[in-house]
């Protein structure tokens, strides 16, 4: 019953470590170091790293930039709300804003081309959950997050809001087409 009693030896910290424990410590520590190296190594050799490029922003500033893109590159509108579908040129800055309860506008991107995707929220925290690829990014109000994306598959992708944002949360779905 000694885990609930004071240790038998006064100098318990000098008690030699058993071989099972010693071996396991070495194995576990090695594994932790491998995992550490993976995370850092992926920044050097991997292709999926979340950008940290962030700016402070305000809803009206961001809306103005998104509106400019929409005015220039809208190809058609969809849904009853006439949400613009925007096809900006590859390599350009594209904007998507999250608000209660929609993503705006719809984007049309080209496969294997790179874009600078700007995300922000007009009000609460929202989630950018790209499906079915399953890429998930937090959207925080007041912060403009710039992510360089290169779609590698064509098709219709949905952007599901996966941060709770109130009663209409489940209606908040956006769209990105990749051609």
């Amino acid at each position, binding site marked *: 019953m000694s885990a609930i009693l004071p240790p038998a030896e006064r100098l318990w910290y000098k008690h030699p470590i058993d071989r099972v424990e010693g071996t396991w410590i070495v194995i576990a520590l090695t594994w932790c170091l491998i995992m550490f190296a993976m995370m850092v190594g992926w920044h050097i050799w991997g292709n999926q790293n979340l950008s940290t490029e962030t700016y402070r922003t305000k809803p009206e500033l961001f809306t103005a930039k998104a509106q400019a893109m929409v005015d220039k590159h809208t190809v058609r509108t969809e849904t009853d709300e006439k949400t613009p579908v925007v096809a900006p040129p590859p390599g350009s800055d594209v904007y998507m804003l999250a608000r209660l309860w929609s993503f705006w506008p719809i984007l049309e991107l080209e496969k294997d081309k790179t874009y600078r995707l700007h995300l922000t929220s007009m009000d609460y925290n929202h989630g950018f959950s790209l499906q079915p690829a399953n890429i998930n990014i937090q959207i925080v109000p007041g912060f403009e997050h710039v992510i360089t994306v290169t779609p590698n598959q064509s098709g219709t992708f949905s952007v599901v809001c*996966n941060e709770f944002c109130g009663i209409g949360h489940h209606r908040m779905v956006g769209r990105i087409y990749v051609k």
Partner: protein
Amino acid sequence: MTVATTYRTCPRSGLQFEHQAETLMKANAFVAVVWLLVGGLLAIGVVLTRWPAVHWLEAETFYMVLTAHGIDMLIFWIIFFEIAVLYFCASTLLRCRIATPKFAWLAFALMLIGSVVNNIAVFRGASSVMMTSYVPMMAEPNFYLGLILFAVGALIACFVFFGTLVVAKREKTYEGSVPLVTFGAITAAIIAVFTIASGAIILIPTWLMSLGVVKEVNPLVYRTIWWAFGHSSQQINVAAHISVWYLVAAIAFGAKPMSERVSRTAFLLYILFLQLASAHHLLADPGLSTGWKVVNTSYFMYFAVLASMLHGLTIPGAMEVAQRQKGFTKGLFEWLRKAPWGNPTFSGVFIALIGFGFLGGISGVMMGTEQLNMIIHNTIYVPGHFHATVVVGTTLTFMALTYYLIPVLFRREMIAPALARWQPYLFGFSMYFFCLVMMGAGTLGVSRRHWDMAFQGAALAYEWPGAAYLMMALVGLGGIVAIAGGAIYIYVTVGSLLWGKKLESGAISAKFTPVGRAAPTVAAQSYGSIGFAAPGTFALAMVFLLSFVLYYFINWKYLSTLWGLS
């Protein structure tokens, strides 16, 4: 200094309970179980709504119920129980009187009032902000006030615990160093102080914001500091339930720690590094540098992971050594086969230990990896993970401990022992299943905290694959079975207190009996095989490592197929 109090020596366990401490433990443990009952009832609403074919509650009710379920379970049930555990580890294990019992009662009152105030605010319906309550989404002022009162109460209770250690030391109620279990409880209490301070730093301005006194709390600062509270509070649980594992290993087997040095160092690593793990909640956030994310979640957090991997070996290892000394030495696993599987205190702890490591531990490290986090952030994988850690790990452990405490602390004979015998299996295995299918659904992308995966009324609905619907149906099914398992626990516990036969209290004296050192170690270890004292445990650890490595790299493989992101 003499204080008028009495000490009771329990005839069933030999433990000595000081009168004031005993009443406080009972009160805290009882209120904890009441919150578990409330949280469990709310869980019915959550799982039956997320089960797509049932889809029971309206959206508004669902979010309210989910908010209350999270807070009542993660904060109120667990912390009330932990306060009882802290008092037990100080006063009972060190056989001393509790320091400042009046302050301990004040702490209890503040926690009780705080928890009720918070719940009233939630059930009024205008505070459905989830447990995390991210600003600028606002709840009623009383939502925050309740949490603040509760936190202040819990903080006072931690200081009563520290004071009790001082009393024990000064009155020389024990010899040498504190027992390992008490040492673990000390680490839990130190982490608790850090946690509660972080909570106060962020909840007080948010409360003032809800009252209109403060204009704005920065949403990113809120997230950063809130998680130092939200995640660290789960680290209190880890330190506490691991202490209970050592306690149960000692009670059920007479097991001694394989090495005091390794186990205590592992606890120390928790204090130094566990809180930093809260950074992994911010891996998908803008505005934080890669260096900050990597240093906190990898460089530092892996020291805490290392600590958990050590406890994961030393606890079953200690059980194995104890069993082998009793003569169960055949093969690798006779010690385990001949373990007291019919004793719910042991079976509960063992099921908790395996589930915590395999399901909670491996998934937790995967989620805490900066890049891999992107494939699960805010999906239902996350609740899958923390139900494995907090429900399978902490809650099941506390349930197992309760079965031990009913006769020892509450002095009642347990009613329905046959039900109690099966309860850890029913609850534990249904929770394993529940967590696995939840993680499965999360791997397919299904969102957490989401009322309707069919996106009723959305202009651009997304259609989840059939497998995701199947997984969510299984989540509902597993959840219902687990709730039934929880109901059995409540029935046995509360029923025993109400109708159980009263047991004799044992000798009462006005003075404590000092606690002596453990018996000296047997000098020559009889080694199991290949020179290892615990070869069976080592084999299990290898299975664990293999699953860990495989799962970890499968996720990297999947990540590499995704859109390029930089």
